[in-house]
């Protein structure tokens, strides 16, 4: 393999991605234009809320608790290098709420929700169920896409909030259990230290990541190729795109909130 090959491949992939970003943006704009216009499908929205929100709680909780716990250990041992072990509650709180809570919840939602939306819609596409919807006078954008995007926009911030709290609790459990922190003082330090903007940024990120995750699942599902291979490819691409866009959006939002 010549050295140029990976470069060329990277270049092509980047160009391809930019074109895709344009198409995705158009798709998202279409979805938004359908959100406000009837008919609405409340049953589909309720199902999406259940699937994306409620059923994601175990995954979100487990992800957050282990991350918070590990974070406490890391900050403790890192802080010990310059006698700053006491900052554990503050850094865990900031780390979880501003950064790790939203990002990890976002990524878990990309893994769990984006993939399942993409696979479901792509399967509907290859088995002509989307065509059938159209012949039954039902707009697939309204019936399939809007409920999922709306539900994700509404419920992922709540998941992030839950993740933040559980993550802080994970740090608290480790700190009080094995690092000899005082339980009440730890919590007081956490609450005193967090500012409203930290929490707001966390929820805004959750909303953005939820929107990205659901939109990617729907986009790649609706544009799936034919056959089982098409479904597989749609699913893979949807998760890749959602994860990368979530991380990129996280960077931009962090910049917007905290470096201006």
């Amino acid at each position, binding site marked *: 393999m010549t050295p140029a090959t990976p470069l060329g491949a990277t270049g092509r992939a980047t160009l391809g991605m930019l074109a895709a970003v344009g198409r995705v943006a158009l798709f998202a704009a279409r979805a938004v234009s359908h959100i406000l216009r009837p*008919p609405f*499908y409340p049953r589909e929205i309720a199902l999406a809320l259940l699937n994306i929100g409620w059923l994601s709680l175990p995954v979100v909780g487990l992800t957050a608790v282990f991350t918070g716990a590990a974070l406490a250990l890391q900050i403790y041992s890192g802080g010990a290098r310059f006698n700053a072990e006491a900052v554990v509650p503050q850094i865990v709180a900031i780390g979880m709420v501003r950064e790790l809570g939203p990002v990890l919840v976002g990524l878990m939602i990309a893994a769990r929700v984006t993939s399942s939306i993409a696979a479901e819609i792509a399967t*509907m596409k290859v*088995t*002509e*169920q989307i*065509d*059938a*919807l*159209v*012949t*039954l*006078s*039902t707009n697939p954008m309204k019936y399939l896409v809007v409920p999922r995007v709306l539900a994700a926009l509404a419920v992922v911030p709540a998941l992030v909030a839950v993740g933040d709290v559980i993550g802080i609790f994970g740090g608290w459990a480790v700190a009080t259990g094995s690092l000899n922190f005082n339980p009440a003082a730890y919590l007081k330090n956490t609450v005193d230290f967090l500012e409203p903007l930290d929490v707001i940024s966390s929820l805004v990120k959750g909303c953005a990541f939820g929107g990205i995750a659901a939109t990617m699942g729907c986009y790649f599902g609706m544009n799936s190729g034919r056959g089982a291979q098409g479904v597989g490819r749609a699913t893979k691409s949807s998760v890749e795109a959602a994860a990368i866009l979530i991380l990129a959006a996280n960077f931009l939002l962090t910049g917007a909130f905290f470096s201006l």
Partner: protein
Amino acid sequence: MISLAGVTKSFGDNHVLQGIDLEIARGSSMVIIGGSGSGKSVLLKCILGLVWPDAGTIMLDGQNVTTQDRDAFLARFGMLFQGGALFDSLPVWQNVAFRLLRGSLKRPAEEARAIALEKLRRVGLMPEVADRFPAELSGGMQKRVGLARAIAAEPEIIFFDEPTTGLDPIMAGVINDLIREIVTEMGATAMTITHDMTSVRAIADNVAMLHAGRIRWTGPVDQLDTSGDPYVTQFITGSPHGPIAAVR
């Protein structure tokens, strides 16, 4: 009345439809025959706007279908897809009553269910099937559920893509009678794709044969045997020898 003029459709360099001219009179039953892969399903999808033709015009009652209000247009149609295309997240009766549970034809759930059960009965399915999910049914049962769904809202124009494929001969007979009944009693216009010559004779007023991207022959069903067209003759006798290649 549906009329097609010069309709073409290609997928890459696969030129599936190469200029289709065809007329289907209101209240008549047109059967499309033609080799596997000749573009019959694509033709139906072009009329419905599920696939966009590259060129040509499709008119419904003298109006170009692309300029009509899409919702009003689709509300007149019912379609049975070749693969059934049932929604696997919904139980059978909700599939059948899909149109009756939402949108402009929405009615109370009990009423919609009663209609669904009646349509299921007409396609030879027991009421017990109503609460099962599509994945729990055999292929032939799924096909019949798809058929029940296509006729549930009593559309004026119904497309059937291979309604009897995968059915036993008795069930196929039931479905042939049903389609005939829908046309003669309810005055619907039907367009049916089938490979089953018994169905052709039972269902059709007119037959059109699609070959090489064009309508090779069209005429009343009683002239099918005396068409004098070697393609049609080979097709209806199922002979491997003739102008149509056996490997495609």
